[in-house]
């Protein structure tokens, strides 16, 4: 047993941290936050050059072929830096769906472009309010085309292609759902940017009007593939959330050491010390759950569904907790646009929802534990 990342993986984390510290300082995040750009194109290019976009993509498809543990450490650093790039939609959702269910031709077409930074991908799943559910998918597939509306689609306005969940049956079973691959630049799809609480990760409405689409995976397998994609993305996004939690904790700790009130650093008051201690506790629990998720993801263990739900819940809670109490430790300053605290608060509350809400994953976790228990 060795419940830790390897030295090589840690070196990769250090390299990513160094790269992002240089190329993605808070100033760069603010360019996107302030609406001056839809995402940080320079950074995206740099990430491709560093090999980070294709770290878990096999070499035959243009990636580094390193694996998912390596992707986890990169994800953590993306969260720590609050990187304003379509990393989660392209790498955790689109690339994972292709890896799981794509034909060789589909992989050959898109994966090298993901790895090189030429293509942004996403998953078009939701149709308005609600959590992942086959029932909620109304968008129709017929005769190789799709018609309907998806909303919200993460990074949908800047994506080149989308994996789209569509209805291909009406039996009321999971097998009514199939996945399709749509080239968003090929016509038939209209994208509209939507305002959202975290402008550093865009959201869009995609309207499909007889848009040409090719099947991804077998007909009727859509829901089963989606479930796996969401589990895998849950682990990866949880690493982002843990990276963000740690950064929020550090920001709060540093401020508490520097800021003087009543003649002493505010970090010498137990009230502040204990807020920070509790942040450390939740970030640590989340990290440990994530490590287990990383192991399950990287080995494709049968424990993955349970591990992914636990990592997602724990990391969502930790990031919300750390980002909000980082603001609290900063007092009034934390509540200004000028300080960076709110960027993490926004990201925390957005990532809490993008793969389905906390309540949804709580329910999923118990369902999965129960099934394991019964088995």
């Amino acid at each position, binding site marked *: 047993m060795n419940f830790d990342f390897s030295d090589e993986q840690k070196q990769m984390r250090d390299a990513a941290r160094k790269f992002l510290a240089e190329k993605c300082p808070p100033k760069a995040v603010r360019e996107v936050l302030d609406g001056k750009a839809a995402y940080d194109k320079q950074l995206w290019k740099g990430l491709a050059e560093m090999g980070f976009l294709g770290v878990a993509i096999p070499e035959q498809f243009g990636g580094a072929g390193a694996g998912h543990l390596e992707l986890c450490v990169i994800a953590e650093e993306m969260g720590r830096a609050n990187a304003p790039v379509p990393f989660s939609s392209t790498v955790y959702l689109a690339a994972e769906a292709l890896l799981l269910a794509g034909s060789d031709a589909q992989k050959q077409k898109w994966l090298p472009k993901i790895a090189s930074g030429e293509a942004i991908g996403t998953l078009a799943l939701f149709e308005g*309010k*609600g959590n992942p559910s086959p029932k909620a998918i109304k968008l129709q597939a017929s005769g190789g085309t799709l018609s309907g509306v998806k909303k919200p689609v993460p990074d949908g306005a800047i994506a080149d292609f989308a994996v789209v969940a569509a209805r291909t049956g009406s039996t009321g079973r999971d097998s009514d759902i199939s996945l399709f691959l749509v080239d968003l630049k090929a016509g038939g799809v209209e994208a509209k940017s939507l305002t959202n609480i975290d402008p550093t990760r865009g959201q869009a409405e995609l309207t499909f009007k007889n848009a040409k689409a090719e099947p991804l995976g077998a007909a009727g397998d859509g829901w089963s593939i989606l479930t796996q994609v969401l589990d895998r993305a849950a682990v990866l996004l949880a690493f982002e959330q843990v990276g963000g939690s740690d950064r929020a904790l550090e920001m709060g700790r540093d401020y508490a050491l520097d800021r003087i009130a009543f003649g002493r650093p505010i970090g010498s008051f137990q009230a502040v010390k204990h807020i920070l201690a509790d942040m450390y506790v939740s970030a640590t629990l989340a990290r440990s759950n994530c490590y287990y998720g990383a192991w399950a993801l990287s080995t494709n263990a049968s424990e993955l569904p349970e591990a992914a739900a636990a990592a997602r819940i724990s990391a969502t809670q930790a990031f919300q907790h750390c980002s909000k109490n980082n603001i609290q430790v900063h007092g009034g300053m934390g509540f200004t646009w000028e300080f960076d605290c709110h960027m993490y608060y926004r990201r925390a509350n957005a990532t809490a929802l993008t793969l389905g809400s906390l309540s949804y994953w709580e329910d999923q976790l118990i369902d999965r534990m129960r099934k394991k228990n019964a088995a």
Partner: protein
Amino acid sequence: MNFDDTPQEAAFRAEARAWIQANAPKQYEEELRKSSLGRTVLKDANILEVAKAWQKKKADAGWACLHWPKEYGGRGSSPIERVIWQQEEGPFGKLSGMFIIGHGMCGPTMMAFAGEEQKRKYLPPLASGEKVWCQLFSEPAGGSDVAGLRTRAEKKGDDWIINGQKIWTSGAHYSDYGILLTRTDPTVPKHKGLTMFFLDMKSPGVEVRPIKQASGQSDFNEVYFTDVKIPDSQRLGAVNDGWNVSLTTLMNERMSIGAGVSTGFPELFDFCNSLMLEDGPAIEDRNVRSKLANYAVKASGLRYTSMRAISALSKGERPGPENSIGKLVAGSMVQEVAMYALDLQGAAGVLSGPEDAEVAGKFQAMLLRAPGTRVEGGTDEIMRNIIAERVLGLPGDIRVDKDVPFNKIPTKGRA
């Protein structure tokens, strides 16, 4: 234990209701009703103008600053009558936001410390909303440690010359006057070298810059003072006694913020009553119900605590620091409520554009505004200290800066 009006109370209520019915700006009622924490309230009108007009109308008919003496523009009403008025004014009360600081803090401070002539001059236009006041206490280096302020006031002939910077000043950009706490002696311990003034915000050398908040809005300002002149006649209280003067103001601040603070519960309950989840109405989901019940009893507990305080007030008891619980409870609650309301929407909860404004937009504004509630007017931690020390009688924190001259207190943490 009686919730019914006495005959006098009933008569007052009927009078108030009739007058409001006849005079309130009804065209904004629905919009005001739907507004909540963190959301600008009117789409097609300048809320400041609407608010000023409504306040003036109230003042002309004798309905402004009910509890103030008549000679200063009030009505001389009892605390209960104020409550009845608030109940009847309903959503139109949300228009009073811009006057809260002037009426709740500056006015009472003026009443306690200004000369009679000044009171008769300044208070009636404050009551009627013709003049707006702000409060200039907080500073960048101060925070919870209000007495750590550095803005200097130096005596020069009959005037004081002010240099420094204030922060978190609500409404400074539309204010006519302000009350200002300054340091007049940095060589004595920090609480002992402060002096309070009021000033004309249009004085030369006063510069107001809006602060952009985490939410993207700008409800507060920084105010810079460069050689601003204030006549000594506008001093409130004795030289170097400003801390004692400010205590009245601060306690009033905590009370009025506490009373006005939103819990988010009514909005969440309404939302859950209409929301459909995958398996049926949200309100029938046992998890939703459990969370709602927990919020409900906090919200009702705060409501009835405030009623108990009003009853005590109307018997002549002084409002105590017990009122600090309102803001302490509501602050973190509204943050949780907002997060939970987004959670219930799933991934679409992130959306905050106008097309989703009725639902998501409301709670998202709440989410982004809520961290401020936990800080303004005293952080959660300061509130707990107040309760522990002034209600429960526990010892104060150990003070390393108490007997040290102000200019010897360290100003930086790690080297």
